[in-house]
């Protein structure tokens, strides 16, 4: 098995394809708008709540400046974090695996070999439909942590990725097929 031809591989180790040098594709710029909409949807009810509280409960009046500035600070910080996270995300499809980079503070890159994919989901929310975007979910047997959720892919591209992956899945799961023939 592997031991027999390992000596060849040992020399080749530096010439193996490098995942870290793959140029990642950024998310579609429109996805930032969707993230902003989500932020607004989260913070608007909060703002209304605070306004009502200040209006009806007299005890909170003295803290009006504090509350508003805290609220503003939270908005600014979370918008900033969302923006950083948006900028950091990227994905790439290689012939034999899928790479997804994300993270807010740390840069984390997850690689899923195509022959380990269990199933694929393509989701479109209301807002992403407005901007013709979709999100792909790739599930492996590696549990929750080993699963990819890539949002903000143009819908046409997402569909073609999905079809491509499904096609490969079918080929891989047919035991009679020679795996090398898939990528010829």
């Amino acid at each position, binding site marked *: 098995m592997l031991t027999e031809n390992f000596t060849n591989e040992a020399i080749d180790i530096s010439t193996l*394809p490098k995942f870290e040098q793959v140029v990642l594709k950024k998310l579609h710029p429109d996805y930032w708008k969707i993230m902003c909409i989500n932020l607004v949807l989260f913070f608007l009810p909060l703002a209304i709540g605070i306004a009502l509280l200040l209006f009806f409960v007299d005890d909170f009046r003295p803290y009006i400046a504090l509350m508003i500035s805290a609220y503003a600070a939270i908005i600014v910080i979370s918008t900033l974090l969302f923006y950083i996270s948006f900028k950091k995300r990227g994905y790439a499809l290689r012939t034999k695996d899928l790479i997804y980079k994300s993270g807010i503070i740390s840069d984390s890159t997850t*690689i899923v070999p*195509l022959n380990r994919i269990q199933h694929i989901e393509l989701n479109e929310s209301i807002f992403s439909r407005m901007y013709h975007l979709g999100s792909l979910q790739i599930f492996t047997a590696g549990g929750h942590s080993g699963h990819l959720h890539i949002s903000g892919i143009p819908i046409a591209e997402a569909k073609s990725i999905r079809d491509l992956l499904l096609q490969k899945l079918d080929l891989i799961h047919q035991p009679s097929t020679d795996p090398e023939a898939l990528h010829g």
Partner: protein
Amino acid sequence: MDRDFSQPQRESALGIIVMAVHTLIQVTKALFFFLVYAFIKMGGAYSRYALLGIGIVVLLCLIYAYFSYLKFTFFLDKDKQEFVVNKGIFNRDQIIIQLDKIQQVNINQSILQKIIGVYGLKIDTAGAKGEEVSIKAIDEVSAYNLKDHLLSSRLATTEHYPEDVAPDKPEGILKISSWTLFKVGLTSNYGKSLALITAFFLYVIQEARHIMEVFDIDKNIVKSTFLSFTTIFSLAIIVAVLLLAFLIFNIGRTFYKHFELEIIRHKHSLLLSSGLIAKKNTLISPNKVQLTRYSQNYFQKRLNMLNMSLKQAHFGGNKKGDEMQGNTLEIVGCNPPERDELLKMILGKVPLKGKTFIPDWRFLNLPVFFKLVLPIAIFLVIAFKIPELKPFIGFALLYFVIGFLMIFISYRKHRLSVNQEFVIKTSGIWDISNEILIPSKIQAITTSQYPWHRSIDVGHLCLHTAAGQISFKYGNFSEIKQLVNYWLYQVESGREDWM
């Protein structure tokens, strides 16, 4: 007698009793404290109605059991290589299990089943939802017969061990004596026993509160009796008694779970059997084991024994914790030669440690800050405010020294060793564990790095498998990336299936 199970058939008719008792126990469990409460509050006058009620419940359970017995049929579809189960009283459920998806077959016997003389058979699959089938009553011959049918139809099992290693005749590999079990009970699984005892006490205290409310017991009386107890015995004796009780509980638990632990090698599978009251037999095929782990602490090293666990795939995080444990098989108290024999069975050969990677010293930073510096700082701030705490400030230093030592040991033991066939991760503070992974079982790989570690080339690695993750932190990031590329190459070019 060799039945082929090709015709739909029912369980053993005695299964009605097993089913009925099973349902009854569940009903009782759910209503236990309600029933106790009801009995006490009602008084003797209504006891006739109460007995009538119990009678009705028992009858309902029997009827329910009878119908589910009637509706529960199973058969083996040889052509499609499927095991089909029909069940459901009101709605028709059909469960179809592909034979090659079966991970393990358990043949168990609870006390009740022992009395009646039947066996229970459970099939664990690796389906996306992790569904499983359990047959509650089947006679012994049929159980083992069915098990053979379920597991024999596997084709590609010779991959990991050549034919000459796998004998046709079942062969015992290891047997754990009671004396060894006693030593195991003394030295391992403290954490699990402690968690169990704590959970039990919390439950008892909660329920005791309910009962005290029912009986109108004054809490102060309980408190004063408790306090007088503590004054009679000094604190030291209480601690000693608690420790002894804990050890006895631990030994008892070990005996209950692993009594007469035995492993027998069949042609394509391993049969593990153990258990004191309820004997549990588990059959697994070695190539479905995703992660192999063995661990040893200082005492165990002295006694020349170690604990092993074999982890199989589990799916869906929403499965209950105890069910997840069902996919981990524990083998306690084996000695190094027995471990090597088992490793050879599962992995094809005894893995040797290859190139070893060690973490950077920055591994210490976060735990030292969050587990030592921050708590001590908070404690000191509070202690200087509250005079009563001042005498205890010395303990902060002790805490720091012990804590730092533990973190430092965990840093020294955190190792990743890689050769072309295996990945071995070593970790631990007291129990030093070795997790062995075959690269073809990798499902996905994650690397991560903090921006401020970019200049010093330090980063983290996480290998996702179907039986959990293996992570290596604060390693040399260039080396990690090279390893990732190598593993990706192995997984993507290899034709070896992970299941």
